[in-house]
């Protein structure tokens, strides 16, 4: 089943591997296929706005592109929405939830913030409009890095194992069955082709299976240096680099830069082989972009590459 047919798509991985870039690009690829898409950041310093050149993204959903909307969920806003859904009345919500004692109490409930955030993602993924149709075709979540990500996704099952009835139990149960349904949800793992990120990604994969029971959608290997030199050129560069030849500073610098690129490509190849051996999920490769900063054209280019690799048949 193609990733594009599922409703809730989450991205996690080691810190610094480019989760937000990949999640944003994937969301754009969904939107470009005509899917009405919501991209969610979870209570972080917003990066998405800089990719789409939009206003800063806060707790209100904003449109950033055709078919593409974004929100940066805060626990407070999620709590208000959730409280309102249950209580129906703003005045009641205020009386209860804006009571100082109640607030402190709620803040101290272990995992409540996480539950509210994952609950909101689930809510949007299942939300229906007046005619009963889905409000969103796809909800893409830029989830926290490995450690916190696991805690976040684990919270519904923790609640289910701690209590056995009540409103929160029923909510947790619904969220859990959605998160673990391979027809509806996918957890995607973003990594670099380097030692520590690959190891952490394997750990995340194992925890996703054992603790979370969540389906893995794909592995995205980010930041791969494109090969620009052919074999004879590489041989020449290796020999010249090792030969320590006397040549002007400019050419010597160029040889060093080329050798650096080659060494990193070799290292990345080594870890790509390991990724291919270790994961049975589809693998998408994303090149390194030699740019000043990540701007919309980069996101667009990654979006196209993801779509080509993850669904070669390509709907719309």
């Amino acid at each position, binding site marked *: 089943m193609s990733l594009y047919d599922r409703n809730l798509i989450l991205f996690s991985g*080691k*810190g*610094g*591997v480019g989760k937000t870039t990949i999640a944003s690009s994937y969301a754009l690829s969904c939107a470009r296929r005509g899917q009405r898409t919501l991209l969610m950041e979870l209570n*972080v*310093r917003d*990066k998405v706005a800089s990719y789409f050149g939009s206003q800063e993204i806060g707790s209100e959903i904003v449109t950033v592109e055709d078919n593409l909307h974004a929100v940066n969920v805060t626990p407070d806003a999620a709590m208000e929405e959730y*409280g309102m859904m*249950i*209580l129906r009345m703003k005045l009641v919500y205020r*009386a*209860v939830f804006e*009571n100082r*004692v*109640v*607030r*402190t*109490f709620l*803040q*101290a*409930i*272990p*995992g409540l913030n*996480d539950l509210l955030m994952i609950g909101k993602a689930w809510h949007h993924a299942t939300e229906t409009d007046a005619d009963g149709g889905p409000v969103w075709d796809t909800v893409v979540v830029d989830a926290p*890095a490995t450690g916190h990500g696991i805690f976040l996704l*684990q919270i519904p099952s*923790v*609640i289910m194992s*701690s*209590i*056995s*009835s*009540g*409103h*929160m*139990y029923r909510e947790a149960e619904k969220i859990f069955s959605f998160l673990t349904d391979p027809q509806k949800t996918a957890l995607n793992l973003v990594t670099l082709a380097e*030692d*520590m*990120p690959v*190891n952490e990604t394997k750990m995340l994969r194992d925890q996703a299976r054992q603790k979370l029971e969540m389906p893995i959608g794909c592995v995205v290997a980010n930041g791969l240096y494109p090969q*620009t*030199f052919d074999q*004879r*050129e590489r*041989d*020449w560069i290796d020999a010249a680099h090792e*030969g320590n*030849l006397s*040549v002007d*500073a*400019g050419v010597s610098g*160029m040889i*060093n*830069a*080329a050798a*650096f690129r080659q060494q990193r490509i070799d*290292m990345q190849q080594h870890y790509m082989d390991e990724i291919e051996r270790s994961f049975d999920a589809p693998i998408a490769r994303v090149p390194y972009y*030699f740019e*000043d*900063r990540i701007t919309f054209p980069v996101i667009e280019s990654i979006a196209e590459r993801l779509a080509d690799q993850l669904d070669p048949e390509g709907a719309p």
Partner: protein
Amino acid sequence: MSSERREDFLELVRQRDIVVCAGSGGVGKTTTSAVLGLQAAVEGQRVLVMTIDPARRLANSLGAESLDNEPTQLDLEGFSEVGVRPDGELWAMMLDMKASFDDLVEQRAPDEETRQKILNNRLYEYFSTSLAGTQEYAAAERLYEAHSSGDWDLIVLDTPPTTHALDFLEAPSRLANAVESKAFQWIYEKELFQGESGLGLFSMGSSYVLKTLGKFTGTELLQELSVFLQHFSPMFQGFRDRARQVRDLLTGPECTFVVVTSPDPHTREESTHFYDELGSERVAVGGFIVNRVHPRWVDQSEFDRPVEDIAAAIADLDVDVELDDSERTQLAERLRSNAASFYVLARKDARSVEQLRAELSRDIPVATVPFFSQDIHSLTGLDRVRREIFG
């Protein structure tokens, strides 16, 4: 980097008892922690590096199979290969948060019955591993223990990656504040819950607020939480005392923070945000280390150089791979364009480091470590980083 800046980093590991490495995820905190520890060991100190990262290859490269919750001495013999003979000792441990928190309960629970009730509570496992601050609290506790033992000349702590540098520092006090707050007391006061229905909180009938809250969370969760907190409450005083001691230690003259970052502008902004937060808490920041800075291999002027000129220069070189004229022209073009690609990154990184220096107080030393072509998980790699920072 100027020699006096190097001197600043040397002073830091020589004079402080504790160095805390803080920063966003993926910036190389664990490697940096190992390198700071290594430098102190080279100079003859007895050093403990406490990490939260299961960086197995890093452990392997330091001669350890893996790290666990107890300090392991690392074999530094291998450094003689890179011409370094450490006079001191380097020990490392990986903080196991769950085990550390279990230890805490073991030590602080007033009696065996309470201990068992806490450890067997259904909420405990989640509480011990993921309630905001518990991990950091456990790390702070282990740090305090290690420091009090007097066994170490220097302790280097690799902190969990957080959005807020101070989660680590604030965690102990936040936890203590939360548990002593009115709300918590209100929940764990026994009489509130033990009315005739078995859950007095909701049988009191008078509180609209509580009823509504029960509707929101479910009464069972409130009850489970209240049972847990009742058992946990005797330990709160101990937590609070310890939180204060840890805070005094971290803000005292024995300790300094090193902020680790990368030149990526977003990461750099996070790091200066940490710096501001640490400053407002009067925590000493001893320095910044910027990892993965792209080197500048060529000057910009080289990109205007005609391809024929570069091709001619490489034709003169005595390289064992024979290329014909058109191959040489193509290679020259590709060499130039590759260098130009990396130049973009080098310029971007240099600007970012410049920006960082401009934003920091002038007496904060900033060390840059180049982006290497290989991962740092060998002794040689660690020693290269060490030489970049300390000269």
